[in-house]
């Protein structure tokens, strides 16, 4: 439980992308996705350019494309709406393999699918190259409210404990014959959630007392005061420059 606090999407490494300060990577990832979303949907080849750009980052970071692809299925639930659009959209329609599909619906679906996928791939790249602790430091250096960063730090410190506790409760229920298949059988699960809340809250009270006894003043001590240089920002934001160029190309093409 206490080991490492690695998150499941992290791929440890020492590449230049891994060593880049987290705040640079957060800003670069957000701006890159902004470029993707701002690109007109009809500029089909430009989205291939974005994929190549991400591919270049993966090469620099030493992330195998298969590793990313397997984790990109996270996206599947989000695209339910996209699948339905071609069947429910307005005229004009096209007939394809005997199925009548709406043209604006198809375009809308393409838009959600391609931008959603590129967004997930960008988020995965950020998560793969940034350990949890670095990410929190990055948030702090980006001037997120101190209280928010502190809460997030404690949350990430204890999330494995709480999730493991939930897992133990689940095993305990299953080993006693619990096999919920229908909604009206959730009683035991829900009582488990109630117990989990009490244990989390009471653990919070104990953690607070333990922190007080170790000199907690209400603020996290700053552990890593290092500054990010302009050169690091310049290198880190270079993919964004390429992204802006791609988005502008998209606007010019359409």
């Amino acid at each position, binding site marked *: 439980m206490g080991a490492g606090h690695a998150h499941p*999407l992290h791929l440890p490494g020492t590449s230049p992308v891994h060593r880049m300060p987290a705040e640079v990577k957060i800003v670069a990832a*957000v701006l890159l*996705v902004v470029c*993707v*979303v*701002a690109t007109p949907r009809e500029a089909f080849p430009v989205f291939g350019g974005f994929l190549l750009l991400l591919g270049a980052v993966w090469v620099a970071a030493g992330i195998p494309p298969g590793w990313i692809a397997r984790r990109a299925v*996270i996206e599947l*639930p*989000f695209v339910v*709406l996209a699948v*339905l*659009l*071609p069947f*429910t*959209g307005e005229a004009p329609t096209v007939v394809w393999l005997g199925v009548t599909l709406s043209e*604006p*619906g*198809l*375009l*809308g679906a393409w*838009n959600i*699918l*391609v*931008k*959603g996928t*590129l*967004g997930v791939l960008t*988020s*995965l790249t950020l998560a793969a190259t*940034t350990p949890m602790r670095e*990410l929190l430091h990055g948030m702090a250096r980006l001037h997120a409210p101190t*209280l*928010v960063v*502190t*809460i*997030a730090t*404690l949350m*990430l410190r*204890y999330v494995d*404990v*709480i*999730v493991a*506790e*939930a897992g133990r409760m689940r095993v305990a229920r299953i080993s006693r014959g619990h096999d919920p298949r*229908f*909604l*009206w059988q*959730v009683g035991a*699960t*829900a*009582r488990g*959630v*109630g*117990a989990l*809340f009490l244990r*989390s*809250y009471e653990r*919070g009270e104990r953690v607070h007392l333990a922190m007080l006894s170790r000199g907690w003043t*209400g603020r*996290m001590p700053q552990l890593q005061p290092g500054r990010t240089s302009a050169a690091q920002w310049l290198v880190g934001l270079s993919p964004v420059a390429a992204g802006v160029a791609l988005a502008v190309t998209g606007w010019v093409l359409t």
Partner: protein
Amino acid sequence: MVVAMHMSDGLVNIPTALAFAVVAVIGLGFAVTRARRDLDDRTAPMAGLVTAFVFAVQMINFPILPGASGHLLGGALVAILVGPWVGSLCITIVLVVQALLFADGGLTALGTNITNMALVGVFTGYAVAVAMRGLARRSRGGLLATAFVAAFVNTVVASLAFVVEYALGGSGGAALGTVFALMVGLHALIGLGEGLITAATVGAVASVRPDLVHLLRPTRAALDSRDPS
């Protein structure tokens, strides 16, 4: 298949995403100030542990239709248990961590996701719960009914917020009526599951530590009438 409410990138355009990011930042600012007042110097550890709890709870899936399951959002649950300010702070942090570390929900959709689930969802759930507080105080059944209705309304209204965002700056292609029917229908089903689990969870907490249920805490007026000093 798990039906999730987290929006991905590309569902709404940049101006809409930006506008709701501003809404989210303002809401978060309020929540930070008020949460500090609710929890004083215990804020960080307590909110941190409640946030970890929300994170763990969101991993619980429940069946809604054959082949489809939803996961608990926990908006009304935290609003009833720890109050709306700490609650929306916790849900916001869960959403930020999910977007940055778990690629769950798009980066440009973070503003809309926070608005829907941490602001609209939590505060709608809390408003319903407060409106029904008299009933909730009267009996255990009343408390369960309050929690159920609050969670159901929270889920459906949060999905309505998505429909509004889609109407403002959606990627288009579908008649708004279709999106409305699809989202509200789906989330009415999710809301039933959310409501049942929320009710049973609040009931379980209230039977062991009723003092921890924020909704059942005496209001200031009630305190004054009992305490003459």
